[in-house]
């Protein structure tokens, strides 16, 4: 009933190319943004910011980066964690070498470092595909994490071997480091993630997005419509790694506050890959849905027994949590292998029709 598209006619291609051809979608997004910008910050606790809101956004951004590579351009990568690390270490070096540099500039620049590394490790994709490419990116994963450990210059010869975020202020307000409040960090992350998401939507719906999808669906045919597969694949690696690198910089600077090389090891890569797959490959929205499921649901589930007064030991809660999340992931993938984004698309279709069957 709410989702009526009747009467919404488009009389120009410009109107048809609008971001929200159905105006209910725009309302829905406005509603979500209202929550994200006003209602959550007013009601959320410090814990909710640190454990739920900020990580969901950062993981969604990392998954968005991976999704461009894997979901849109069809190149499987297992090196996401390491590329996030490149962004984080690059940002760390930038802010320590140039302390007067604005943090936002440093984060934006650090993406270029991971983009360059991503393109370098994407070169094998010109020759190999599928699982074999995944193995090549796995090599990047191990090599880069090894580099983060062994190259002491990267962490400024810190005795702990970790990178420690110094206090960084913008306009007199501390945004990173031990003095920053979670709410400020959340707003900065929200702004960056929203901006990158809009840019990613724009890229994927135009010429370049079609080029990527063409290479994904049939690379030979793509070449025969005049698409240069080398350009398509390497540009996907560059854009994807840029976004992943920015997510990595946010991961350390606006959330964790410190990181050891092991933080960027393969479990992080898999985590981001799971988010992208469960959310839905080849979709932008899916990254958010997947991040909510993978990051936020465990937090909510483990907080539940305490909230309803169940006396469970914390170890028990942990075990239950792992089991429930695991079962949910399998269930979602069986019910809808194309991910939560497709799930939503089907619900939306049904809502447009409802209550009539056709």
């Amino acid at each position, binding site marked *: 009933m709410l989702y009526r598209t009747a009467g919404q006619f488009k009389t120009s*291609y410009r109107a048809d190319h609008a971001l929200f051809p159905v105006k209910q979608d725009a309302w829905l997004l406005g509603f979500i943004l209202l929550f994200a910008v006003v209602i959550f910050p007013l009601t959320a606790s410090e814990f909710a910011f640190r454990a739920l809101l900020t990580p969901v956004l950062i993981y969604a951004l990392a998954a968005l980066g991976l999704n461009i590579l894997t979901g849109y351009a069809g190149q499987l990568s297992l090196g996401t964690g390491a590329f996030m690390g490149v962004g984080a270490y690059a940002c760390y070096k930038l802010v320590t070498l140039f302390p007067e540099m604005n943090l936002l500039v440093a984060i934006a620049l650090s993406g270029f470092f991971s983009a360059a590394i991503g393109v370098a490790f994407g070169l094998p994709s010109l020759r190999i595909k599928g699982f074999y490419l995944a193995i090549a990116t796995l090599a990047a994963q191990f090599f880069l994490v090894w580099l983060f450990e062994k190259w002491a210059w990267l962490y400024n010869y810190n005795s702990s071997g970790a990178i420690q975020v110094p206090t960084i202020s913008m306009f007199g307000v501390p945004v990173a480091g031990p003095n920053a409040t979670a709410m400020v960090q959340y707003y900065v992350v929200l702004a960056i993630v929203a901006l990158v998401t809009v840019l990613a939507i724009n890229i994927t719906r135009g010429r370049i997005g*079609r080029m990527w*999808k063409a290479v994904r669906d*049939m690379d*030979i045919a793509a070449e025969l*419509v*005049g698409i240069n597969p080398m350009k398509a694949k390497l540009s996907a690696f560059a*854009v994807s790694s840029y976004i992943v690198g920015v997510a990595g910089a946010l991961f350390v600077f606006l959330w964790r506050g410190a990181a050891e090389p092991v933080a960027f090891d393969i479990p992080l890569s898999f985590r981001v890959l799971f988010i992208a797959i469960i959310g839905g490959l080849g979709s932008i929205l899916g990254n958010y849905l997947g991040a909510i499921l993978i990051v936020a649901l465990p937090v909510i589930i483990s907080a539940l027994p305490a909230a309803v007064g169940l006396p469970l030991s914390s170890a028990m809660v942990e075990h239950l949590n792992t089991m429930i999340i695991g079962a949910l992931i399998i269930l979602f993938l069986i019910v809808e292998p194309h991910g939560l984004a497709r799930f939503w698309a089907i619900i939306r279709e049904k809502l447009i029709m409802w209550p009539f069957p056709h």
Partner: protein
Amino acid sequence: MNSRVADPVAIAEQGAGEMLMEVRNVSLSFGGVKAITDISFDIRKGEIRAIIGPNGAGKTSMLNVINGFYTPQKGEIVFRGQTRRAMKPHHAVRQGIARTFQNVALFKGMSTLDNIMAGRAVKMRRNLFWQMLWHGPALAEEIEHRAAVEEIIDFLEIQHIRRTPVGKLPYGLQKRVELGRALAMEPSLLLLDEPMAGMNLEEKEDMSRFILDVNRQRGTTIALIEHDMGVVMDLSDRVVVLDYGKKIADGVPDAVKSNQAVIDAYLGVAH
């Protein structure tokens, strides 16, 4: 014979009709297997040129040579007055050669509209920066090409499947979308690899009409491979016949039909 824009007999007799492509003494082999042996023929502007022959005669290999997928070991190809040698398929597209495939080669996850829009990839120029901004030059370019694509959609009568992912379409429609994608490239030479394969009579009639309309209304030169002899003889202006990688006949359909070598190749001959 129906009244054609370019009269094949006149072409043959007077040498009229500008030369679009000339294939000169091309040979192609894979290891020890000779796919094509010393073949020469030409394609003139505005004609429908059929390449026929029994299975394994080297027809598809010939198309693959023409659009740069294979590089022949011997011989040369002159396209629009320029000799060319080794090249990649996406270079051939830039020169104005488009093709469809025997087994439909569409982008299955994309909608009909996106598939045909992808055919205009070489014509669109806006870089990553403008694409990110979207509003402005990138959107203007998108809309300009959308209008051209919608014309093709109207022409092929596939308005109703504009938003459908092509993987879900029936085979006949997929073939039509593939033709649309090739047309979106606005080629000067259109290569069709068995456009009627696996179609029923009605679909064949539709496809024949589209091919003729493309040739007449858009003035596109067409080279096609087809096994349905009725279709070939009705559609094409001139026919080249291959057998075991060699050219055995070349000429107007009526002449080819009565050629003894062609009859032998198709029906077999007692040795």
